[in-house]
């Protein structure tokens, strides 16, 4: 396993500068994603507009993997209908579970993150933001 397997340019660029990093003043939804064993805490903000996700931002402190994954997620979910977003999140989390069959076409760029599955200690990092969003979306009845 070479380094580039995990820390690809893709991950580095997303983690070093993400257009989705920041807060959202008029967010409709807010959620904290915490990975206490890493000390990581991300805050996810979401604005909704007529059944769609209009804006996603994240802020806080995390490793390259968790931050890159949050960035990719924000990019992917913006503009999607809530129902569709739920499917996407389910598919992404399915990448890291043994028994789920995943429709990877929903995931676009995010699919490259599935390589993290080979680094079991980092699965928590790559799914951190996604678990938070899963909860946010579930709460919308």
């Amino acid at each position, binding site marked *: *396993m*070479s*380094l580039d*397997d*995990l*820390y690809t340019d893709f991950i*580095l660029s997303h983690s070093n500068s993400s257009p989705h990093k920041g807060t959202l003043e008029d967010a409709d939804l807010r959620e904290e994603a915490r990975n*206490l*064993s*890493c*000390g*990581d*805490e991300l805050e996810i903000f979401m604005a909704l507009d007529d059944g769609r996700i209009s804006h996603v931002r994240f802020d806080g*402190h*995390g*490793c*390259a*993997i968790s931050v890159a994954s949050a960035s990719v997620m924000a990019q992917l979910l913006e503009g999607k209908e809530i129902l569709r977003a739920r499917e996407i999140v389910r598919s992404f989390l399915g990448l890291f579970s043994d028994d789920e069959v995943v429709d990877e076409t929903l995931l676009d760029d995010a699919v490259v993150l599935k390589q993290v599955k080979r*680094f079991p200690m*980092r699965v928590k*990092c790559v799914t951190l933001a996604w678990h938070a969003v899963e909860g946010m979306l579930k709460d919308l009845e």
Partner: protein
Amino acid sequence: MPLSNDSGVSLARIKEDFPVFHEYPGLVYLDNAATTHKPDTVINALVSFYTRENSNVHRAVHRLAERATVLFEDARRAVADFVNAVPEQVVFTKGTTESLNLLAYSLSLSEEFKTFIAPQFEHHSNFVPWQQMSRRFGREFIPLEINGAELELDTLERVISNRKNGFVLAVSGLTNSTGFKLPIRQVVDMVHKSGGIIVIDGAQLIPHEPFDFEDSMVDFLAFSAHKMLGPTGIGALVGKRELLERLPPFAFGGEMIDRVDLHDTTFASIPQKFEAGTPNIAGATGFLAAIDYLNGLNRTIVAEHIERLTSLCHEELSSIPGLRILSPEKSHGIVSFVHESVHPHDLAEFLSQNFDVAIRSGHHCAQPQMKGLGIRSSCRASFYIYNTVEDVEVLAKGIRNAVRWFG
């Protein structure tokens, strides 16, 4: 190199005794505070036990049971000798965490102690038991303020002087998150003068330096075999005899009883009183082999060797821009640090994948200590007898590389 033990074996050749370094010749293992590797004598002791003595102890008269019992009690004697205590004072446990829970529970049941005190830099295993037992049993809990990574004696004095009631100070001899070394002698004096008792979490200390329980006047001492070349699943609680005799038992079952009636039970004498159920017998024989191995080294030279590596590490790391060392200047065996632009997990992962360097990243089971330092997590390099100067150099080189890569 002056690094040789009594029998003239160079410390530099110690790695040869550890099968893991044959398996991974390039491995730079700097996660010794989490667990150490095992020499072949320890591994062979386990194989030998399961091949030649395997049996339950204390109970049967057949040949294997007899041999297993003798070996198990030999292990107890070796542990006792290692810290200058007598065998009756040595309770075998699963490890430091069980030793400390046993104690926190037993001291809570006793009416003598109204207050439990633990510094904020403690490992969760020496912090949460005292905090939680206080809540459950209505005792007072005082999380002792720290200054960065250090406990100041003034702070301790302020908190313990003029106490009316018996108290327990639970404190690490050497902290696992930064390597701060407690001035044990002074602290013991202060505690006893104020009418308290002192529990030393020796998980990090005992692997590193000779300790004389009798002479130290410490009331209780806890440590784990797996952090000092021994197997997982075995450790010890050493206590003053009169305290062990007075305290109620923790767990109940086979081995620890005297007479069991339908509604009441009388208990065995120490140390069996605190050992319920089949012990980790094979683990004890491995612990014995680990102690034999350490006894075969010149421990003063080993301690000096580790000190040299630690201060070299301080030196190397402090010249890396953006890197902050969290350990006290005179830390022992442990150097903790963070880099302003690389997350600890990324740094640890990078070092492992590119340089085969194993360090630990995270909160090191010491969240209050992390808060005290104003951080969420850190990297930690920790040394043991088989580490070399080259190990430190590879670490420093790897960190410089990581900073460039992530930068």
